[in-house]
């Protein structure tokens, strides 16, 4: 029982801490791209495309934490 309890606590902690970095990263990234669009509206298509690529790659890091979290919840006995 204690093993499962620690696994659950660790799962919560893992996802919580694991969402900090990507959260800050994505916020910074989108902010910079909004700035770029404001300075040069003609390039908004290119900037938007690059922003989406950046968001996809950064979000993957948060998802690694999610995968570890799910493993801890459902596979630990």
């Amino acid at each position: 029982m204690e093993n499962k309890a620690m696994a659950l606590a660790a799962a919560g902690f893992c996802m919580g801490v694991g969402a900090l970095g990507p959260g800050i990263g994505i916020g910074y990234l989108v902010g910079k791209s909004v700035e770029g669009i404001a300075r040069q509206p003609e390039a908004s298509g290119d900037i938007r495309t690059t922003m989406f690529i950046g968001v996809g790659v950064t979000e993957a890091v948060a998802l690694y934490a999610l995968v570890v979290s799910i493993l801890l919840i459902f596979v630990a006995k």
Partner: protein
Amino acid sequence: MSSGAEGGGFEPTAEFEHAVKPLTIGGHTLEFHIGPLDLSISTTVVYLWLAAFLVGGICYLIARRAQKVPNRKQMAFEALYQYVEDNLVGAVMHGKIAAAWFPYILSLFVFILFSNLIGLVPFFLGLGEFGGISFPAFRTYAATSNINVTVGLALLTFLLTHISGIRANGPIGYFKGWVPGSAPGVLKPVLFVIHFFSEMFRLLSLAVRLYANLLAGHIMILIFYALIFMLPSVVFLVILSPLIEAGVFAVSLFEIFVATIQAYIFAILSAVYIGGAIQQEH
């Protein structure tokens, strides 16, 4: 944790175990083994076939009636074609290799897009039973929410990257391109090892990014529905289930967005890796 939970235990990830078991039709279990390879037909395999036939069938039907003045379906497909050619392939590959690799990137993009979107459509999968009453059971399942499928796709891109890099630059030249020439001689092995591990990690991250995005979406939908099973009485059910349903609807709309973006990211990262391997400019 949930007091008075009726409906038995509901484990969201147990919903995904059914997808890798071999199917049984009329008493015959469709299990095939060729040596160590397990080629049995499971739900995931059927969904992959469905995606492949849909992609091939739709493209064939559109191309069969290609006219100079395009009709609407042809215009839509040409818009997709043009978009992939300009933004996905043209932005990262230049010259002849863009034409050579464009079919692969387009197929990858359309196949992953279709596989992701099919995961939001419920299919009739026989009769289910709940509390003694049997009623038709629908299930939604995305083929790409299975790690085996995404590792297969990422492995394809990975092998094509290195094979095309070795063919374009020669085996020695290709691996020499991994280390920037301006590095001091002592650091070169260290940089090589670091680059080697980052190449391995690209394979893993391509696979896990697609898999985790889709799995997270489906688990969120399942957890919303699990809330219904945890409600203690019928009164709560009547009041809260419209809210729960609205939540599932919102998550599903977001899932459409995520499905498109993830297909796009997989395709453009494949193009970047293959283009970078062939056109090494260090």
